[in-house]
């Protein structure tokens, strides 16, 4: 809850800037000549350097400075944004990220990276060493009185000006009040700098890029009249009325800043915990509202009833809005994979094209974060095992560039994310052989196609003949499956030999709410996730009596085993005379759960259980009911597993 920690703020900003740089660089690889991209990358580097220095990240600032310098040459057209240069800056960018996050970095790494960078620049062939004519500027600037309090530091600004060329600095103390009135934390000074430089006006504006909004800046081009062509930047208006020029967004920098400011006005960055807190409050509101509703229902006061209904509507809307607030577009996640593909191309020597679709699809923020690792693994897998090498592709008559497509779309209360590749497809015979070898299936077992393909998600399964440094490391496919199931999602897989594979992840929109079936066992109430429920039937007294020996019912010619929740939960009270069976599906199994009463549908706001109850296992969370009571949410696969063990114990006990 430390939204005000300046270091944290900087880290967040740095994160965004580095992402901009990375995206810009990757785009540059496709469109090397794009001025806007070059400018954008340069500007992000510059901002990173500046705010890094301001927040005391000196190593970062110093390192970034070199990259910025290199990119400045690109910007001025002295060197081209060649592939080696982009790669070098990308590598350097990783180093910056480590510095920004305060991670330890290998000694000498920075030197090596900078050497690479230097080589990339020079390797491009020395661009014509055009030494631009020297220009002289007279710069007067002052900062707002509270600038120091807000973290602006004039010294680095002056240093930066000095870096541009020969600078003479004079302090203007006119505005300093008498000692009695002086506020020591205020900035009363102004500066006048005469700068002789080869840089243009833009470079000066860039120096002040962070403080430009509030400060006064006057730049006078002393050489302007003598220049042969009246360059646009030495706009006469500026010379005549420097006061006006100060805040005129003449430089592209100021324009970009303005654009950013407008954007910042549209979005608010809020710590996730605050959203969680709000979610809790909304939950409480919903509970209080349903109590009010009960009260109103038993009252004959018409006005009270009207208000209760109004509150009910508002509370429901509030809850829906709250859900939307937590949603973020999946573009955030997809954006990260472009870099992954870049690295994969390098590591595998395959050419890969990543296309994405449906980036605007929105998902709960927590879900998005937890999806990152599984998706990385699936993409790696597609690149490493799915896509063939260039020769094999040519032999198969496929285009040399392998395609991986990431697509997301909403379908009801789920988001479907598909990872499609046009590689060799899954070799079913090899999957089967491998599974038999590992003892996952009995030799010659009859399996459906989907069952066979799902085997690749089994723990300890790997078809890679050789473990490459790509897919061999990190999480296995079984972890992918676990993570997805942890999100209450499911994985489907399909594959055409020679044509490629499609892995589909079906993920619920939000972790915070599920539809559930509320049931009662003894005095306790439980929620069964509605997604798992197939049907509800009555447990007839005859079946009940018989089932001391076997717990099976026949459901449309199919035998369905059932578990008595009251046994499993050691419920003390006597069972209801007409118990019900809720038939649930888990994986391939159908199992009946015997309950005392089915209370109905319940939209459930899921609350986690504390780690005290983490090892109880049978419950995935809890929820608060309309009357303020608590119902535990059943973790169906765990309940079924426990039921099987319970039965085994009973059999063993004989």
């Amino acid at each position, binding site marked *: 809850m430390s939204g005000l920690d300046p270091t944290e703020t900087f880290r967040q900003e740095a994160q965004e800037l580095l992402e901009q740089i990375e995206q810009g660089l990757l785009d540059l690889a496709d469109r090397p000549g794009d001025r806007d991209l070059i400018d954008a990358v340069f500007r992000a580097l510059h901002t990173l350097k500046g705010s890094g220095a301001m927040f005391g990240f000196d190593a970062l600032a110093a390192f970034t400075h070199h990259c910025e310098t290199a990119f400045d040459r690109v910007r001025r057209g002295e060197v081209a944004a060649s592939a080696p240069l982009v790669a070098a800056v990308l590598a350097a960018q990783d180093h910056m990220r480590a510095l920004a996050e305060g991670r330890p970095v290998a000694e000498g790494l920075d030197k090596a990276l900078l050497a690479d960078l230097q080589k990339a620049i020079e390797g491009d062939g020395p661009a014509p060493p055009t030494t631009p004519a020297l220009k002289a500027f007279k710069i007067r600037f002052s900062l707002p009185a509270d600038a120091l309090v807000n973290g602006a530091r004039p010294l680095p600004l002056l240093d930066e000006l000095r870096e541009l060329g020969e600078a003479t600095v004079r302090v203007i103390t006119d505005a300093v009040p008498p000692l009695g009135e002086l506020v020591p934390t205020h900035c009363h000074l102004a500066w006048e700098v005469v700068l002789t430089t080869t840089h243009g006006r833009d470079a000066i504006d860039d120096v002040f890029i962070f403080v430009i909004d509030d400060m006064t800046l006057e730049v006078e081009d002393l050489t302007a009249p003598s220049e042969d062509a009246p360059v646009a930047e030495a706009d006469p208006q500026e010379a005549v009325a420097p006061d006006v020029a100060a805040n005129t967004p003449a430089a592209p920098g100021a324009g970009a800043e303005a654009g950013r400011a407008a954007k910042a006005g549209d979005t608010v960055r809020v710590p996730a915990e605050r959203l969680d807190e709000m979610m*809790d409050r909304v939950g409480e509101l919903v509970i209080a509202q349903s109590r009010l509703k009960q009260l109103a229902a038993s009252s004959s006061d018409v006005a009270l009833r009207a208000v209760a209904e109004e509150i009910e509507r508002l509370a429901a809307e509030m809850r829906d809005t709250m859900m939307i607030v937590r949603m973020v577009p999946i573009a955030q996640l997809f954006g990260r994979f472009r870099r992954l593909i870049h690295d994969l191309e390098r590591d595998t020597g395959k050419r890969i094209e990543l296309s994405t679709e449906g980036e605007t699809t929105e998902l709960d923020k927590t879900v998005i974060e937890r999806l990152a690792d599984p998706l990385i693994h699936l993409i790696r897998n597609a690149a490493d095992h799915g896509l063939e090498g260039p020769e094999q592709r040519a032999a198969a008559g496929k285009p040399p560039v392998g395609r991986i497509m990431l697509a997301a779309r909403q379908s009801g209360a789920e988001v479907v994310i598909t990872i499609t590749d046009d590689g060799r497809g899954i070799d079913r015979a090899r999957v089967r052989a491998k599974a038999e070898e590992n003892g996952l299936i009995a030799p010659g077992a009859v399996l459906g196609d989907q069952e066979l393909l799902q085997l690749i998600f089994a723990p300890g399964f790997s078809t890679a003949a050789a473990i490459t440094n790509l897919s061999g490391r990190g999480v296995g496919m079984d972890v992918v499956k676990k993570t997805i199931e942890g999100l209450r999602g499911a994985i489907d897989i399909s594959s055409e030999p020679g044509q490629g594979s499609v892995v589909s992840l079906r993920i619920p929109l939000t972790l915070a709410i599920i539809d559930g079936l509320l049931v009662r066992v003894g005095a306790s109430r439980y929620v069964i996730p509605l997604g798992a429920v197939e049907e509800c039937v009555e447990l007839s007294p005859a079946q009940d009596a018989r089932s001391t020996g076997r717990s099976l019912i026949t459901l449309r010619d199919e035998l369905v085993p059932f578990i008595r929740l009251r046994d499993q939960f050691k419920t003390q009270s006597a069972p209801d005379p007409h118990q019900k069976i809720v038939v649930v599906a888990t994986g391939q199994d159908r199992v009946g759960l015997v309950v005392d009463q089915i209370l109905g549908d319940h939209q459930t706001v899921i609350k986690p259980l504390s780690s005290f109850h983490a090892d109880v296992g049978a419950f995935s969370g809890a929820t608060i009911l309309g009357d303020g009571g608590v119902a535990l949410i059943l973790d169906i696969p765990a309940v079924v597993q426990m039921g099987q063990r319970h039965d085994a114990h009973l059999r063993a006990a004989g």
Partner: protein
Amino acid sequence: MSTLEALTFDLHGETFALEATLVREVLDLLPETEVPGAPAFVSAVINFRGRIIPLVDLRVAFDMPLAETTIDNRIVVIEHPLDGEPALIGLRADKVHEVTSITEDSTADVPRVGMRWRADFIRRLARRDGDLIVIPDLDQIFAARGQTASVTPFHPPQAR
């Protein structure tokens, strides 16, 4: 000299003290939801202002028999780290008393003999009016999930 502002409460005739800064609220008994399969130490959860929090019974950690509920029973809600995460936890109390000041010189280390309780579950013992107040070590108790088994009175002295 440091003093400890502490909320005192009774469990099975013994007086316990908790740092007052930990305490969020003292509640009357409210409906509890039993968690089937959970140990007696944390057998239930409650709805505390829209949050579902575990209800801890310290009597289990101190080998005390569970008693009938009385009108004096309370739940003391504390904020205390649980496995590294800040958490709200409810503690059952037979009866809750006032907040008192416990001065450091009135407290003593846990003696190594004469204790039937697990020594590392107790941070300090305080003397008051010829009686004892137990200042429990919640970190240790929570980490051990209230299991009393592993310790004899000759347990090596704790680092603290």
